[in-house]
């Protein structure tokens, strides 16, 4: 009986797969590639292991097979001599210092504007891993990949370690005297002192800068951030008189319309937005979902989660918005908009928006003020302000006194600047306009750099005063509703000094920065908490403090939008010209402008490219212009030109060139041999896109991507269901056990059976889990050459599957890691029995026994195993943190490093499991659910991963296994994996 049901399920599954049109890549001619069905140019080791023939009786082959075999067998195991090791006693710096135990310090991440609270894990007085702060209710401990990777910058040997005057080393005291006298002299002459930095969100720093201005009245603060949402702020200023970025409450929105805004990955506050967005898509606890429509030209991961995606050109954005605005005002389609309406169903969308007045959000990431004005107008017509969009408790406030970088540039051109202080900004890399002003820059009398690394500016700067890394520094930040503190987790490694401290010294202020910060924070808290005493220690220990919110008011503006509409009309583009769009890529958002190997190697979720910057074009455009994957093209605009390789990406708008931008883009493009960096001056305001011409160049290179290899069969797809189907489904009808596993023996597990449930409804594909796993488990970074060969070492991979036509496919993400099969195919094929299964359900890889035969990797149907082809842990130029003495401090001491010739895979963070178990046993407690968190689970911004004991009836995992969405990947082949995936539910019919 059971067999009959199981059989039925298999047939059903296969027919389901046949109906769906699922593919993983496009080949050279634009045809779909389906692994398992079409021959894929695979670089996986599975296809190379039997490359030479043993059967030829040639003497050469004989020697190859015999000689290499026996000698390689013994030499592959590295002989580690039992070298003399010294032991020093552990010196406790306080009474509760614990050797080898972890200690968490709460701080705040400064990498982007979101300022997520962090919890930094330190072992033996040094930070080893960065996690999100669990107690912060908005993120629930989630963190993006950039924050995890920023730990690398702390131990980077390229940091400037001491203060310099030109090429000479100086002490801080000498520098202070010289600089102070120079500043006084310049100030007396009335010359301008310019401080160029990123947007400063810290009340203490702002207070310090205003004090600095009182001391030196000629100071002016400029800020530089090419990807800053300038237009959004301008629109709000013009409409409501508030120069702010409002808070967007996605948890109050039933209908979300996004015009190119990648709010789940890179726009403004991705982690919090993800949590709020998913709160409205919680299928387990409510019967309805929000509805999300995305209009965009690039394929972002937000679109992958969306219910409906429309492909538009950047020039069409204004037209669509105008049509929408007119419909909302007049409730009818005006004749000029008819073609747009047919294409994009504007009327239907507008009706739905009106139905959900006040419970919708319309956003755009465009940097064109006219478009943002239209968006503001639409939101206002829908009564969203005061409800789902909050202007009174904004996400970010802009102080009025800041100048923009363009003003600074014009002043430098006129030689009006006498002193320039560069604060964590790589001038020439972040804003290439400075390249043209070399002579003017060198003529500035006083040039001071606070940067961490040596760059072009440091070559001719007068003084190098290196700033602390944020993990060595103290600061405070304010964002919507919270005051966030940042404290140091490690004593300064080198002889650097915090920039704020330097400024205080140069003002001859009696306090040092720490005292100043505490005073300032106390004053701020007193003002905010209405006189209640707040203990500073508590605030620092917790990491954040809640500030009472003001009530959100409704705003209605009466602006005349016609001039803006006319502006957009005049910018209509013809159809033969290419349009460039710069999109902010979350993988290029790094703490410094230098190359960060973790972020560089992390594959882009949609195109799975890594290490290089590629321009994305659609398959149709590629075919029309005869461009293949990896072909170099030269893009010419009115202002600059650039040579860059192409990547054919399904789903991108036709005749569009999508270029990813970010802080690290410059460093990566240098590796690319793309000669001229982009001039973002023209793109930072006024126009959202630019016209361009392209020339196809003859050169072609192999694309560095992880897509064509490590791709499991399309049958691995976890079926996705629409909301209607899901609601109609009978809850008792669970997917029965597949037939083959009925034939395999079930094992008993004691005392625990570790399992994992990954909720695909929540997974956005961001890849933070992958970088977190890499940091936790000392996984090496292999470099672009090795990635091109298919040797990337990530234990947690996000597989991407397409569904549908090549023009506008649906994307599905599947995080794949070792499934810890109970009946593992990798165990039986190991020649030296280095793989075994534990009594707790884990699949154990023994690194010291492994001889490197790689049979396990070829036999694994999930392709989740990786192999150390080279000595990635030592002498690896791409992963300097493993080969360098300073960089090795970053390694997690709880996990061993693997050497050449060993296979490795996910271990469910066994080091965390064993540690928690040991602690529970010693404290004589029982293990509760949630005490053990794997690295991926802890850092997922969407809280999509759950780990726990499948035998414990009180655990979350046990409860989720009963869900009607639970499936195993490739369950029917009988591997009995321990990971269950919950299907994604999409709102495909606009049922809200």
């Amino acid at each position, binding site marked *: 009986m059971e067999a009959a049901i199981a059989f039925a399920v298999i047939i059903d599954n296969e027919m389901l797969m046949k109906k769906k049109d699922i593919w993983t890549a496009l080949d050279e001619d634009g045809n779909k590639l389906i692994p398992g069905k079409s021959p894929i140019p695979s670089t996986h080791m599975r296809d190379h292991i039997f490359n030479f023939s043993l059967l030829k009786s040639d003497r050469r082959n004989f020697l190859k097979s015999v000689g290499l075999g*026996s000698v390689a067998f013994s030499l592959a195991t590295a002989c580690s001599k039992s070298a003399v090791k*010294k032991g020093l*006693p552990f010196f406790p710096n306080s009474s509760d210092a614990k050797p080898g135990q972890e200690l968490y310090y709460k701080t705040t991440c400064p990498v982007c504007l979101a300022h997520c609270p962090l919890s930094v894990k330190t072992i033996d007085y040094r930070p080893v891993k960065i996690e999100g702060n669990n107690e912060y209710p908005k993120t629930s401990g989630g963190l993006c990949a950039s924050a995890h990777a920023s730990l690398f910058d702390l131990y980077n040997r390229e940091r400037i370690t001491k203060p310099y005057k030109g090429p000479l080393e100086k002490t801080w005291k000498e520098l202070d005297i010289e600089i102070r006298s120079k500043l006084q002299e310049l100030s007396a002459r009335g010359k301008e002192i310019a401080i160029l930095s990123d947007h400063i969100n810290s009340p203490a720093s702002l207070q310090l800068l205003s004090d600095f201005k009182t001391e030196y009245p000629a100071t002016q603060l400029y800020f530089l951030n090419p990807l800053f949402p300038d237009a959004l702020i301008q629109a709000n200023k013009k409409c409501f008189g508030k120069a702010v970025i409002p808070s967007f409450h996605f948890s109050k929105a039933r209908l979300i319309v996004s015009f190119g805004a990648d709010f789940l990955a890179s726009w403004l506050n991705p982690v919090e937005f993800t949590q709020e967005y998913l709160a409205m898509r919680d299928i387990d606890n409510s019967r309805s979902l929000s509805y999300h429509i995305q209009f965009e030209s690039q394929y972002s991961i937000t679109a992958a989660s969306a219910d409906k995606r429309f492909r538009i050109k950047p020039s069409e954005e204004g037209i669509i918005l105008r049509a929408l605005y007119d419909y909302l005002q007049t409730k009818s389609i005006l004749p000029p908009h008819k073609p747009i309406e047919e294409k994009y169903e504007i009327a239907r969308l507008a009706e739905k928006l009106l139905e959900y007045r006040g419970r919708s959000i319309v956003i755009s990431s465009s940097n064109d003020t006219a478009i943002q004005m239209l968006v503001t107008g639409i939101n206002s017509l829908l009564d969203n302000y005061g409800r789902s969009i909050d202007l009174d408790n904004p996400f970010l406030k802009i102080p009025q006194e800041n100048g923009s970088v363009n003003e600074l540039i014009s002043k430098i051109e006129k030689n009006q600047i006498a002193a320039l202080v560069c604060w964590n900004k790589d001038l020439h890399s972040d804003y290439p306009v400075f390249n043209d002003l070399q002579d003017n820059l060198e003529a500035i009398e006083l040039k001071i750099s606070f940067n961490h690394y040596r760059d072009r500016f440091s070559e001719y700067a007068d003084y190098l005063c290196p700033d602390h890394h944020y993990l060595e520094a103290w600061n405070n930040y304010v964002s919507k509703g919270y005051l966030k503190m940042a404290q140091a987790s490690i004593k300064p490694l080198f002889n650097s000094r915090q920039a704020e401290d330097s400024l205080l010294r140069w003002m001859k202020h009696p306090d040092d920065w720490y005292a100043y910060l505490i005073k300032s924070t106390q004053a701020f808290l007193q003002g905010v908490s209405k006189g209640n005493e707040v203990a500073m220690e508590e605030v620092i220990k917790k990491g954040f403090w809640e500030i009472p919110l003001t009530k959100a008011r409704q705003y209605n503006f009466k602006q005349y939008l016609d001039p803006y509409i006319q502006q957009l009309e005049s910018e209509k583009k013809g159809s033969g010209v290419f349009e460039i769009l710069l999109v902010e890529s979350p993988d290029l958002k790094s703490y410094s402008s230098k190359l960060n190997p973790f972020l560089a190697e992390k594959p882009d979720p949609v195109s799975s490219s890594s290490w290089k910057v590629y321009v994305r074009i659609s398959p149709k455009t590629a075919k029309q212009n005869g461009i293949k994957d990896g072909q170099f093209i030269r893009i010419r605009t009115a202002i600059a030109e650039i040579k860059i390789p192409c990547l054919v990406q399904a789903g991108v708008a036709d005749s569009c060139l999508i270029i990813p931008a970010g802080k690290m883009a410059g460093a990566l493009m240098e590796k690319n041999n793309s000669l001229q960096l982009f001039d973002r001056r023209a793109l930072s305001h006024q126009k959202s896109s630019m016209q361009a011409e392209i020339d196809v160049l003859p050169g072609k290179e192999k694309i560095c991507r992880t897509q064509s290899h490590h791709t499991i069969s399309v049958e691995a797809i976890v079926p996705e269901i629409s909301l209607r189907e899901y609601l109609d489904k009978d809850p008792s009808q669970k997917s029965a056990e597949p037939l083959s596993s009925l034939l395999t023996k079930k094992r008993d597990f004691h005392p625990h059976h570790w399992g994992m449930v990954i909720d695909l409804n929540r997974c956005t594909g961001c890849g933070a889990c992958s970088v977190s796993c890499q940091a936790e488990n000392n996984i090496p970074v292999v470099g672009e050459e090795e990635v091109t060969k298919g040797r990337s070492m990530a234990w947690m991979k996000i597989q991407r599957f397409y569904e549908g036509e090549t023009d506008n496919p649906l994307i599905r993400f599947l995080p794949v890691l070792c499934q810890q099969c109970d009946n593992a195919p990798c165990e039986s094929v190991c020649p030296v029995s280095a793989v075994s299964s534990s*009594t707790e359900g*884990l699949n154990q890889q*023994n690194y010291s026994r492994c001889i490197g035969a790689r049979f396990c990797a070829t036999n694994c149907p999930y392709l989740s195993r990786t192999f150390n082809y080279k000595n990635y842990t030592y002498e690896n130029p791409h992963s300097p943190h493993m080969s360098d003495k300073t960089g090795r401090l970053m390694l997690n001491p709880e*996990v061993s490093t693997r050497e050449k010739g060993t296979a490795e895979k996910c271990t469910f963070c066994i080091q965390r499991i064993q540690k928690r178990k040991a602690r529970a046993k010693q404290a004589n407690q*029982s293990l509760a659910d949630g005490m053990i968190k794997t690295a991926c689970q802890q850092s997922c911004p969407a809280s999509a991963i759950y780990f726990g004991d499948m035998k414990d009836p009180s655990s979350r995992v046990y409860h989720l296994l009963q869900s009607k969405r639970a499936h195993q990947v490739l369950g029917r082949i009988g591997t009995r994996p321990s990971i269950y995936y919950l299907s994604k539910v999409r709102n495909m019919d606009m049922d809200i």
Partner: protein
Amino acid sequence: MAFCMRFCSKAVKVILYLLLLNGFNSYGTDDYKELFKENCASCHEIGRILTGPDLMNINSLRTTDWLIDFIGDSKKMIEEGDPIANQLYEEYQRIEMPPAGLSKNEILGILDYIENFEVVKPVYQPYTVQEINKTRFKPTTSLIALSALLLLLLLYLLGSPLLRKRLPMSFYIITISFFGLAFSMSVSKNRTKHLVAKEQHIAQPLEFSHKVHYTDYQIDCIYCHEKALNYATANLPLLSNCMKCHDYIREGESFEKKEIDKLIKLWEQEKDIAWVKGYRLSEHVHFDHGLHTQTAGLKCTDCHVNIEIPSITKTNVSMKWCLACHEKQSVNLLLNYYKNVYDTIYNFSGLISSLNGSSNCFCCHY
């Protein structure tokens, strides 16, 4: 009968005589040495000022009566206003000498011992290291197999065509594969041997002797290695721990002042001793001391045998030896940890640890 009586009385007389003898004779100097050690040595040394003044030639400095009174009850003497007693009291930081509780004879005996105290120079006896595991050349299987392989290869390559033709190809295939297999198996059998530290004499910066500290003076292991109770790594003690005693113990029995002088010098320079590790586990082995001492209830000496042999690598820390417990030991099911795990599902009267997961690779290797 009469003879017995005479014998008994004689015996009694002898016994009584002996008793009297012992009663009136002074004890041997050794007994008073013990008394001195027990009662006085914690604060006084003969030849050095410690907490209390130097006792060298004390009998010529003070009168015996005064000494007996002072040792008997120094506090009374100070209160009564004795000038010498008060002067000493002020000079030695107002630390009272506690009453010894000794009889007059015992005090006299101690004073006698102090009088006759000679600084005896101990004979310096350096510890001789026995050569353990003298390595001699032993042709193992691997060498035999390897040489056979090479011979066969040479034979194939360099042998005359006539010889090669006589012997069929299958001969070479079979023999080479056999010896190849033997070679690789023998190599893999001994594979972990090089990971286990050989027992050898290692030169420590300081000749610390566990025999003196642990066996002779019976200082508990946890006194120095206190983190071994609760944490994964047992710590090496800080110098401040050593100085708790060695602040005033400056001379040892084996090496006189030599080694302790090194200690004092490092303490004054505010450095720590860089010991050479005796127990060397490979990087992929994670051992948790706290679990073994607290939860499993093992004593330190259960694993750290041969603690008395100094400057030598300790027990052969191989996996085979750990498996002796990790495979067969019984689990303590009374722990709260197992409360919800085993009591509803299983009803074990006794559970072997290997069923509980102690012989999993992941228990220690990750």
